[in-house]
C-alpha cells in the first residue's frame, strides 16, 4: 500500500504549521507518503459555485494523478480539499456518463479506486494503534474540539461521524490524555471564506466560538482544518477588536497536539508560526 498526500494550497501557504506537524508526526511514527506529483487546485469554494464540470474536473485530475502514480490511499489534511475530493469521487461513481465526460475534460483515465482519508481517519488508522507506547508527555489540558463545517459534511456522502455532534476528534484528544469539554460550538460556522471579503462577519462568528471555549475554561481549541485555524488564530486581532476584549486561548491543530505528546519540540510542529501565542507545550 502506497500512501499519497494532497497538501492543497493552504498547507503550502497559510497553514505551513499544519503541514510541518503532519510531516513531523508521520516521521515520528515511521510513516511515509508521496506528494501527488503535479497536483493542482481542488477548486475550493469558488469552482463549485461557478461551474459544475470545472468543480469536478479539478479534483478528478488530482485523483487521476494519484491513480497514475500508484497511490492507493491519499491523505488530505485540509477539510475543504477533503470534501471536494470525496464529493467528486462520489458524483463520478454514481454517474458513469458524467465520469466519461470529465475524463475527456482532463484528458486522463480516472477509475475512482483511491481511498481518500481525512486527517482524523489517517490518525485513527496509523497513529492511534501505536499512540500509547509513543506518548511521553500526556496532553493534560482541557480542550474544546472544533470540527467546523466540512470535516463531517456532507454526511450522506461521507457517512463519517455524527454530523451535528461529532465525536471523533474528542476521542483522539482523550487518547492523548486531554479532557474534551462539553462544547456546543463544535460545528458552528467560523465565517469560512468571508475571511477575505467580510472580516467583520468572521470576527463576529469566530468570536462566538472562541468566547464559549474560554468561558467553559478550555486551555486550547483543537482544530483539523486550515481555514478554521486561520479564522480563529490569524484573525484574532480583528476578533478582539470587534468584541472589545482580549481572547487569549490558543488554537492548535490536532497533529500539533499529537506531536507535543510524543515529545516533539514546539518548533518542530510549527507552533512558533501561530499568531496567538501557544503557552502550552
Amino acid at each position: 500500500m502506497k500512501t499519497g498526500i494532497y497538501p492543497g494550497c493552504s498547507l503550502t501557504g497559510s497553514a505551513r504549521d499544519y503541514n510541518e506537524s503532519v510531516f513531523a508526526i508521520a516521521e515520528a511514527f515511521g510513516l511515509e507518503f508521496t506528494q501527488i506529483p503535479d497536483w493542482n487546485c481542488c477548486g475550493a469554494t469558488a469552482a463549485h459555485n461557478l461551474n459544475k464540470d470545472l468543480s469536478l474536473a479539478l479534483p478528478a485530475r488530482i485523483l487521476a494523478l494519484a491513480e497514475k502514480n500508484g497511490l492507493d490511499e491519499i491523505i488530505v489534511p485540509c477539510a475543504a480539499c477533503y470534501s471536494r475530493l470525496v464529493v467528486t469521487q462520489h458524483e463520478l461513481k454514481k454517474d458513469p456518463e458524467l465520469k466519461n465526460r470529465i475524463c475527456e475534460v482532463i484528458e486522463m483515465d480516472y477509475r475512482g479506486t483511491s481511498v481518500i482519508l481525512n486527517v482524523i481517519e489517517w490518525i485513527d488508522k496509523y497513529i492511534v494503534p501505536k499512540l500509547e507506547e509513543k506518548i511521553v508527555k500526556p496532553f493534560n489540558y482541557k480542550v474544546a474540539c472544533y470540527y467546523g463545517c466540512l470535516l463531517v459534511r456532507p454526511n450522506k456522502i461521507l457517512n463519517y461521524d455524527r454530523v451535528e455532534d461529532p465525536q471523533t476528534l474528542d476521542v483522539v484528544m482523550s487518547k492523548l490524555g486531554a479532557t474534551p469539554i462539553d462544547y456546543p460550538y463544535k460545528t458552528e460556522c467560523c465565517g469560512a471564506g468571508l475571511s477575505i471579503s467580510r472580516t467583520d462577519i468572521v470576527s463576529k462568528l469566530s468570536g462566538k466560538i472562541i468566547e464559549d471555549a474560554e468561558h467553559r475554561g478550555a486551555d486550547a481549541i483543537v482544530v483539523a482544518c486550515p481555514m478554521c485555524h486561520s479564522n480563529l488564530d490569524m484573525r484574532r486581532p480583528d476578533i478582539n477588536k470587534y468584541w472589545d476584549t482580549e481572547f487569549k486561548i490558543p488554537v492548535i491543530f490536532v497533529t500539533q497536539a499529537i506531536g507535543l505528546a510524543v515529545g516533539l519540540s514546539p518548533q518542530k510542529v510549527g507552533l512558533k508560526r501561530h499568531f496567538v501565542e501557544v503557552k502550552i507545550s
Partner: protein
Amino acid sequence: MARIGVFICHCGENISATVDCGKVAETIGKLKHVAYSTEYKYMCSDPGQTLIKDAIKEHKLTGVVVSACSPRMHEPTFRKACAEGGLNPFLCEMANLREHCSWVHEKNELTTEKAIDIVRTQVEKVKLNSALQPIKVPVTKTAMVIGGGIAGIQAALDIANTGHKVVMIERSPSIGGHMSQLSETFPTLDCSQCILTPRMVEVAQHPNITLYTYAEVESVEGFIGNFKVKVRKKAKSLDEKICTGCGLCTTKCPQKKIPNEFEQGMGMRPAIYVPFPQAVPNRPVIDKEHCTYYIKGKCKICEVVCPTKAIRFDQPDEILDLEIGAIVVATGFDIKHADFFPEYGYGKYKDIIDGLQFERLASASGPTAGEIRRPSDGQVPKNIVFIACAGSRDPAKGIAYCSKICCMYTAKHAMLYKHKVHEGRAHVFYMDIRSGGKNYDEFVRRAIEEDHVNYIRGRVSTVFERDGKLIVKGVDTLLGAQPVEIVADMVVLATAGVANAGAEDLAQKLHVSYDQHKFFAEAHPKLKPVETNTAGIFLAGACQNPKDIPDAVSQASGSAVKVAALFSQDMLTREPLVAVVNRYAPPMYSTCVGCFLCQSVCPYQAIEREEFKNRDGKVVKTVAKINEGLCQGCGTCVALCRSKSIDLLGYSNNQVHAEVMALLNEY
C-alpha cells in the same frame, strides 16, 4: 356441449368511446359454442342484469362472460345475477374491457381488436369452468384483544357487550396503556385517569372478559373463526387468588432505585411493584431482573411480610392454549426516546425531557404531585420551550410522517404549564400547526390568545447548556428568518410517535403486514381501515399509526363491530377459489410425491400433511393437503409443484392454458 352467453357492457361511454362494442358483440357471436352475444349500455343496472338472467333461461346457457369493468368492481353483482338466473355463480367470468383496454388506449381498430381478444380468452376459459360450492367453516365465538390501552379496552368492552366472550392480553402488569400516564386530555382538559379508570375497572369486572396481564402472545395458528393461540402468562411470582393487594411487600422491598417505567424514568420503584395506584389488576408483580432474591439467591423480605403468604418465588411461566375466532390488535405506540437528535441534547442535559415525561410532571399522581418542577434541581422553570416535530416530518434525520398528536399535546402542555406557573413564559417552536379535529383549532387559539403562549414558527437548530441555563437557538420564519435565541430553564421535545417495540415480531406471528415504519398495515387505506389483509384480524388504535384518543376509540368500536358481524354467523362462507391437491383411488392416492416444497412457500401456512394407511394401520403414503379455510388462492404452490399435482379451483392449469391458446390461435 357448451352454450356460452357473452354480454358486452358500454359502461356509459367508458368503454364504448374507444371500443366498437357492436363489432365485438358481433364477432364474438360467430365463435363456436357462443350461443348468445349482445351489448348494453349499463350491464350492472337492473335491466342489464335482467337481460343476463333472461338469456340464461332462454338460450339454456352453460356459461356467461360479462365483458365490462374489473372483476374487483362488479364480479359479485354478475355472479349473483347468474345465480338468480339458475346458473352456478362460478360459471360466470368477467372480461375486463375498461381498465385493461378502453381506459388505456386510443379509439381505433386495434383497440377493438384487443377487446375481442380479451373476451375470447374468457370464452375459452369459461368453457372449462366447473360449478363450485362455497366453503363453510365454523366460528369460535371468542375474540382476543391484544393490548390493554384505551383502544384495546374500548374494543373489548364493545365486543363483550354484544354478548360474546373476549380474552384480553396485556404485556405489562396493568392495563391502561399510555392514556393512564397522561395528565389531562385535549381539547377539554379533563383528567385522563378520571375518564379512563372506570373503563379499566369495567374490563376487570365484565363477565364476558377474561383479562391476562403480564402476558404475551407466543404463537398464532389457524384461520378466521378458528385461530389457535398460545399465550405466555409470565410468572408474577405470587398467587393472585390469595394476594389482597395490600401493598405491604412493595413498601418493604429493599430494592428501591429501579427507574419507574410508568413515570418514564422520572421516579423510582421497588422490585415488587404495582405500576400505579389505579392499576388493574391491583396486584404486584416481581421484576425478576432487579429482585435481590432472583439475583443473589437471598432476601425474600416480601415473602416474610406478606400477611396472606401469597409470594411464590418458584412460580413458572404458564402457557395457555386458547381457541379464538377473531383477533383485535391494539398494541399501541411508543415515542422515540433515544438521542437520535444529539443537537437537542436529550439524554445529555437533565432538564430536556420528552412529551410523556412532561405528562408525568403535570400529573397529580406523578413524581412531583402535579407541580411543574425541573428534574435537575426541582426548581419551577420560569422559561420553558416546547419543540414540536422533534423527529417527525424530517426524512433526513427522523421519520417522514407527521406524528399527528404532537401539535395538540404541545398546545396542551404549554397551557397546563401556564395554568400552573402564572408568571412563567412558554414558547413553542413549530413547523405548522396541524389541529384538524372537533374543537382542536379553537384549543390551540386558546393557548395562544388566552394563555399567551409564544408560538414561534421555525425549527430549532441546537439546544445546549451554559451557566446552568439551556440556550435554545432557532429561527423565526415569519419574521424573515430571524435567528431566535431563548434562554430557557427547561425544554420539552415532542418526539416522534413510533411503532411499539415488538410490533414487527407480533405482526410476523399473526401473519399480518406492516409498513416500513413497523406500523400494522390496514387492508385498504380508505375503505378497509380496521381490517388487516389476514381475514379475522382487525386493528384498533395507534398500532396502525399515531392517533389521538378519539380516533383510537372510534377505530376500536369499528373493529368491534367487524368482530360482532363475524360472530353473528354460526358458519362462515367463503369463496371456493382455493388450491387442491389431486386425489385418486388407491394405490395411487395422489400424484403428489410428498416433497412438501409447497409447504415452505405457502404464505398462509395452509398446507398440511395427510397420511394414508393400509388395513394394518401402516402409513403407506404421505401427501400434501390444503386447508381450505386457510388457503387464499394465491397459486404459489401450483406454480411450484414439480409433479403438477396441485390445481387452483376457478383458475386451473387447463383454464389458463385455454386462455393462452385462445390468444395464440386465429379465430
